[in-house]
């Protein structure tokens, strides 16, 4: 009986204008928006590849180990699923500098290059499904029960030997199946366009997360539909349930997301950034003098000639033994001070970032009353574009920094080897000594210098730690599980209340 009724409800729904318009709108908008979203993703992917290649080239061109910690950066690859949900990916930096005097931390992203872009809101498929599919679900659900009552067919149906729970279940099943059509078609269209696009590479992990996104979207739509059916079971007129449904939709889809952020800013205020910058400057001043003093206590004698290939790729080309001895001792004294400075600055920055994350978590928690917001959170977590994913990247960057510093420390015997700052060999020292003693003419020395620079071998980076952005199948399993559980809870809650309301519903 249930399936007969479900089939009847399904056919009735499919033959309405609203469902047809909803399916067409959902699929058409997905197809229209995807090229722009894919193009944006490919542009970001190209930038990522170019940055990684430039970084690798820079590492290969390093002549001394000091160059590595002047230029090395790691980058977070753009998520292919970011076309479904942009999250906060574009707001947060997608790279981290690996330096001895700074520890990677979350910072403002490329938008900081053009801060005015903040006035333009982002677009992704999650926004489309949040608005279009949820509206369709509300429109379909609002006259599911009260509409039939108004037409008189509900009374006729229940006057037969049909249990109430069967009637309601068939409506819910039919509604769910109807809504699955535009959702499935939209997902198929998006996935097909994405996978057919050049440069886009789907991995198994992406496939699993896409499947979970589909499941999450289904739960979301069903929750909205069940909520609409609940309203329909509480009212006698379809117009009343439609009005209530639409106003609840406004509250949950438009007001709660913005109000949650607004209230989080008021309830969990953050300090201005200016004092942090002042504290950082003060620390820099203190440690600059500390490192300077530590170095100044070591006399620096001798001669050297420095060379600058680029602004950040500098080294002492040739030196005499006295100079090397002095610089080695100074580096051994100064570098640990800069590393200590980095930890102190990071402590300040981390405290500040923690307040930002606290405010963000409060906004997310306040918005949990709305299935629309929970859905957005789940999609961002699955796409790897939420705040927790960004934090995970920075944590991996910090681990990589420790590995790099350990590697350099090992290679230079705790910064005591000349290879940390100069490629100068014994033979080079001999030539330089001849020049200093006046035994080599200036022109000949310049020619030698140019030859030497041209033939310099890059520093040996065998065994250099690789940075792998191991985000895994589920970058934030806990967040995703919680979000899915909440959506399931909304479904169960609305279903249970609908059943309770329908059992007492006056069908006359």
């Amino acid at each position: 009986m249930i399936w007969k009724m479900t089939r009847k409800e399904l056919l009735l729904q499919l033959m309405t204008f609203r469902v047809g318009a909803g399916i067409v709108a959902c699929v058409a908008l997905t197809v229209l928006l995807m090229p722009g979203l894919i193009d944006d993703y490919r542009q970001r992917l190209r930038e990522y590849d170019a940055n990684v290649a430039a970084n690798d080239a820079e590492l290969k061109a390093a002549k001394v180990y000091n160059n590595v910690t002047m230029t090395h950066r790691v980058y977070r690859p753009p998520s292919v699923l970011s076309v479904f949900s942009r999250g906060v990916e574009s707001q947060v930096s997608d790279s981290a500098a690996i330096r001895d005097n700074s520890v990677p931390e979350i910072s403002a992203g490329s938008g900081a290059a053009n801060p005015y872009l903040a006035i333009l809101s982002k677009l992704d498929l999650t926004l489309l499904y949040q608005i279009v599919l949820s509206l369709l679900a509300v429109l379909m659900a609002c006259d599911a029960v009260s509409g039939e009552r108004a037409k008189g067919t509900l009374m006729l149906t229940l006057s037969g030997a049909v249990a109430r729970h069967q009637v309601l279940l068939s409506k819910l099943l039919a509604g769910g199946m109807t809504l699955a059509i535009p959702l499935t078609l939209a997902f198929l269209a998006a996935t097909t366009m994405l996978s057919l696009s050049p440069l886009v590479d789907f991995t198994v992990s992406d496939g699993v997360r896409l499947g979970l996104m589909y499941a999450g979207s289904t739960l979301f739509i069903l929750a909205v539909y069940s909520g609409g059916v609940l309203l329909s079971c509480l009212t006698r007129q379809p117009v009343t349930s439609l009005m209530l449904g639409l106003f609840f939709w406004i509250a949950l889809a438009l007001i709660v997301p913005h109000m949650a952020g607004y209230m989080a800013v008021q309830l969990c205020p953050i300090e201005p950034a200016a004092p942090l910058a002042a504290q950082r400057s003060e620390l820099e001043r203190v440690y600059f003098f500390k490192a300077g003093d530590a170095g100044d206590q070591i006399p620096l004698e001798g001669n050297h000639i420095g060379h600058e290939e680029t602004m950040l790729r500098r080294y002492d080309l040739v030196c005499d033994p006295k100079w090397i001895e002095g610089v080695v001792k100074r580096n051994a004294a100064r570098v640990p001070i800069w590393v200590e400075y980095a930890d102190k600055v990071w402590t300040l920055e981390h405290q500040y970032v923690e307040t930002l994350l606290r405010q963000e978590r409060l906004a997310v928690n306040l918005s949990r009353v709305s299935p629309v917001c929970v859905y957005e959170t789940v999609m961002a977590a699955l796409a790897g574009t939420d705040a927790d994913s960004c934090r995970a990247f920075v944590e991996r960057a910090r681990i990589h920094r420790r590995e790099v510093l350990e590697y350099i420390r090992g290679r230079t015997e705790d910064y005591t080897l000349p290879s940390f700052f100069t490629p100068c060999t014994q033979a080079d020292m001999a030539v330089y000594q001849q020049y200093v003693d006046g035994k080599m003419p200036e022109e000949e020395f310049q020619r030698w210098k140019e030859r030497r620079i041209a033939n310099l071998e890059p520093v040996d980076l065998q065994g250099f730690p690789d940075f792998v952005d191991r985000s895994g199948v589920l970058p934030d399993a806990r967040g995703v599980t919680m979000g899915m559980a909440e959506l399931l809870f909304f479904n169960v809650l609305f279903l249970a209340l609908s059943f309770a309301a329908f059992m007492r519903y006056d069908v006359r």
Partner: protein
Amino acid sequence: MIWRIVGKDMLENTLSLRFLLSMLLALGLFVAGSILFLDRHRTQTEDYWKQANENQSGLRERCDKLYRLAFYRQEVLRRPGALAFCAEGSEKSLPTLFQFTMFTKELAGAGGRSNYILPHFSDIDWAFIVSMIFSFVALVFTYDSICGEKEAGTLRLMLADAVPRYAVLLGKYLAAMLTLGLPLLVGMLASLIVVASSPDVALHPTAWLRIGVLVLLALLYLSIFVLLGISVSSRAAHAANSMVILLLCWVGLVILVPSLGRVVSDMSLKGPTQMELERNLQEASRQVWDNRDQYGERAGSMSHDLSWPGNNPPARARLRTAATEARNRVLEDHHDRMLAQVFAGRNFTSFSPAILYQRVAEAVAGTGIHHCVTVYRQIRQYQTDLKQYVHSVDSEDPNSLHLIFDEEGCAKSWQAVSHRPVDFDTVPKFQEREPPLGESVRSAIWDISLLGLFNAAFFAAAWISFMRYDVR
């Protein structure tokens, strides 16, 4: 006859559930938005005055020597707008801190309490409530204004009674506007009571005039959706179909088109990056320094000992001035490119009445990106005024070399700029000026015209549709 129809429809609307829900929603949102605004405004105002006082103290401290004043790096925050509760204009996300000396200024940065990790959200200001919520409510009021009456059979009866169609149309339009206007005005009034009764916000007479203009603009905007609702209602055979079409139109005009702005701005114009800026600055500096000889002999060499024969102060001044101007040109160009990228996206979204209304509201309230740009320009003018002041005071000192260029060491050791003290009261101080209301409205005249055009277009559509509507 029109007013009878207006009265009848108004009575029907005000006794309906949707009116009650609209009134409750309006009151709740307007009051909540105002209360939250007050708290934030208080914090922002405290930050602003703290920064302003620190800046003034620094300025006063440096009045002991003119050259110190010339090289003082001032930091100013944008003043928080008293009318931000009407149109916040994404101010929390826009740069607020401006740092500059007499010679150059940095690009504006985030000096406030913005959180770049928080997902983008709009403040619950009047612009949000009117553009998003009330536009939706307008469609809810009008989706069945024609086809609903047709389904009920009353439209046929009305028209059979020699009531002209235009009277019906105008009556319904006026009734919908008045019905919508009630919760809107009640909500705005409640919001104004909350804000005006707070000691933290001072609303001067011009502000009230601006608020009046904002109310009129809100009605102009909502009129678009009322006419849209009526025109679709006069095309649809059933109210359910009308509702679906209108909701799709609303999603497109209010949600999707505004969201396309960022995509368009990224696609149409390559945004300037920080690395590009640094590269351009280095290149500009390198070009000047590589051609330093054209500014005079020994322009590139300098010693703090003025008597050193290698010094050539006038040449040095020309070189450093050229370098400063080159740097300022690069920064100005970068700033213009940033704005161009944003406006490309924003101009595309002019198809959306919601964006037009938000832009107009920001212009009248004195907030948003135009506020940023205005302050940027005012700072540039201030730099010119300060430079003129320093020139005029410096010229009175016979001990000064009268060479005002961006190198503090030389100004100090060579006395290139006067070392005399100056009277703090005569020193120009930066004060942000709010553009007059007329200027604000003029700057938004195109957007207001487009809103009027939307009204005209949908009115024509409603007129034509209803004149040909089959009422049987």
